[in-house]
């Protein structure tokens, strides 16, 4: 009974959020900064949650996320560029070898599948490695994937190192929210299933997990492939958001950004990753932009230290402050829920009451 009300509350909350977005979209022009941030935030939320599934829930330190996003993005782009635009996109490669296109949702899933297949192949040798070595090896694979996709000989498929463009993009801000929402929902379901418990067991103690009959190789591979699948989908979404993509975008710096989001949100917290993602994107792309303005004054005092680049300095200082002083991130390993908020305020309220009550007694 209680569980049911909780579910209803959560579903209601999500519906309200979507409705709010829908209304906002009718009022505010779609190219406004707010929507840019919301769209990108939703996409990064998905990839951050997928990374959290690996790093936070399974305890596998992988830094290959950018590589799998690249696979998803390229698969999506290659499969959806309209046939009539292919000649102009693949101008150096006679229109490329693929001469058909498939619907957007299918292409997104295909992107996820391609990323998952690659993850499976990479995982076979790499997942035997421990902690830092695994991180470096996956980082290395991401770089190798990036180099392969820039290779001229693959040009008819990948357009070499050149931009891919003209593929379908978002029609509405709701699209990335719905797709990312469904994917994150699936990840949450997985985490709360018996497999999710097995992942957490591996994170806590590999040896004990193995002694409890959990096949390490199989479960690590599973987490790696599933995480990559969703990274691939978010790559496809990122392509839709960016409107053009190119292998050189998917550098290791991108993985570091995602990792920062995961840590800021709280390792092992899905809602933390989501909140972290929106905050991170909003700060880096939007809220701090005015710091780059070199014509700011306080009274008559010219803030001459504010010039292009200052925003990023402030931003990195903020990140350092969080890393040093809020080690567990915004959410720790807890989850945000209506129930949690209610309890939080209840506690506050009770405390206050207690204090007031206490004082009145005196």
């Amino acid at each position: 009974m209680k569980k049911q009300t909780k579910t209803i509350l959560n579903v209601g909350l999500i519906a309200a959020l979507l409705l709010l977005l829908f209304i906002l979209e009718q009022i505010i022009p779609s190219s406004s900064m707010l929507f840019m941030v919301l769209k990108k935030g939703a996409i990064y939320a998905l990839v951050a949650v997928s990374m959290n599934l690996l790093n936070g829930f399974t305890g596998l330190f992988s830094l290959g996320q950018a590589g799998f996003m690249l696979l998803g993005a390229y698969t999506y782009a290659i499969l959806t560029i309209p046939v009539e635009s292919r000649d102009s996109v693949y101008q150096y490669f006679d229109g490329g070898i693929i001469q058909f296109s498939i619907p957007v949702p299918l292409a997104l899933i295909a992107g996820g599948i391609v990323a998952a297949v690659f993850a499976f192949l990479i995982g076979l040798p790499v997942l035997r490695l421990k902690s830092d070595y695994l991180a470096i090896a996956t980082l290395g694979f991401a770089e190798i994937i990036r180099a392969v996709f820039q290779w001229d000989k693959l040009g008819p498929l990948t357009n070499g190192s050149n931009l891919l463009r003209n593929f379908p993009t978002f029609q509405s801000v709701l699209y990335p929210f719905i797709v990312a929402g469904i994917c994150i929902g699936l990840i949450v379901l997985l985490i709360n299933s018996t497999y999710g418990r097995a992942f957490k067991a591996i994170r806590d103690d590999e040896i004990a997990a193995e002694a409890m009959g959990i096949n390490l190789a199989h479960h690590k591979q599973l987490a790696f492939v599933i995480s990559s699948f969703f990274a691939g989908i978010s790559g496809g979404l990122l392509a839709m958001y960016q409107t053009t993509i190119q292998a050189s975008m998917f550098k290791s710096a991108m993985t570091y950004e995602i990792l920062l989001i995961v840590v800021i949100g709280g390792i092992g917290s899905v809602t933390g990753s989501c909140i972290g993602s929106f905050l991170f994107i909003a700060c880096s792309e939007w809220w701090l932009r005015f710091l780059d303005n070199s014509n700011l004054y306080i009274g008559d005092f010219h803030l001459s230290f504010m010039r292009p680049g200052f925003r990023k300095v402030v931003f990195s200082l903020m990140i350092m402050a969080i890393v040093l002083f809020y080690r567990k991130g915004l959410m720790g390993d807890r989850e945000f829920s209506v129930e949690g908020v209610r309890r939080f305020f209840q506690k506050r309220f009770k405390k206050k009451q207690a204090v007031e009550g206490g004082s009145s007694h005196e």
Partner: protein
Amino acid sequence: MKKRVLSVLLVAAMLGTLLAGCEKKPEASTDSTASADGDVVKIGVFEPASGDNGAGGKQETLGIQYANYVTPTVEIGGKEYNVQLEIVDNESSNDKAPSAAATLVSAGVSVALGSYGSGVSIAGSDTFKEAGIPVIGVTCTNPQITEGNTHYFRICFLDPFQGTVLANFANESFMATKAYVLTKLGDDYSTGLGHYFTEAFEALGGEVIEETFQEGNSDFTSYITSAKNEGAEVFFAPSSTEVAALLIEQAASQGLNIPLLAGDTWDSNVILNAAEGKDVDIYVSTFYQEGGNPKFDEGIKEWINSDATAKANNGGDDTVSGLTVMGYDAYYVALEALKAAGSTDPAAVNEALWDVTYTGVSGDISFDEIGDAKRNAAYIKHANTETGAWDFVAEQTVAE
């Protein structure tokens, strides 16, 4: 506990300064435009100020800023408007471009100028398109930018043209039959220009050795050795100025004795500084040769010398780059379009742009049915390693 307090204070202090700065913002902008009756038209400047192409982007921006300094107002529909530049840094990065473009869109610009670097122009294009804002490309030379778009215009020549010019020049001036072409992976400008040069050079019966380098690469010695080993007669390297400086330095120290050829990006004093006093032979194709319009040269030099920031952005001296000239011209083309439109509405400006004609410092500007400038001449310049200035070599045209 102490740490908690400290961190809270820190964050609070940070937010405090941010908010303080924020609140003053409107005041600041009204300060600078208080002279008129407050009617403002905004022109977006979509240029890189950091990253690989930061140097070039800054020089282009400089031209726009100078033009704005010379002509800060425009009459639209019988009303005097102050022109306010909204400058945003696209960081030379294709993935940062859409959000930079979105910043301009949400700032409410009527028309945008830029960008230096073809990749970012393509990457930002759709954001402008969606918002219905016309863009005037300043020096982005890749054909794909305007192709199939009705909102993107450009005032410079295109890569197929530039590539052909340079191929012809290499063939005629050096009797070269073997060229080494070095392009950057994932850079549309570099790849595109390299491609068209190769096409034209091979059409002339020449042989081309193609090589690529990756972003972040700073070791070009192997490429230079390869070029020497292969017996190339010219070394064609369309690339950013950042790469150029490294390449020139290493070419000189390795004794590369063949001419170095490059496109418009190399028309920068970064190249001159790198080449000064070294044994290198550099030729570039560009839009403008200093001395082409003495009055303009004099004016802009005076302005650059009077403004420390401007001088730093120009690379520390007052050499006038072709990029700056193009930026200057682009600003006036935008003003012409605003005047012709008689409104600050982006759609109207977009409509008006098709028929704009303007005679700028870099020559006559008008647009064809794709939105590209009708240009048929490029200047070839040679870097004088003794004086540290550009020597004019030839004006090249291509028979259609």
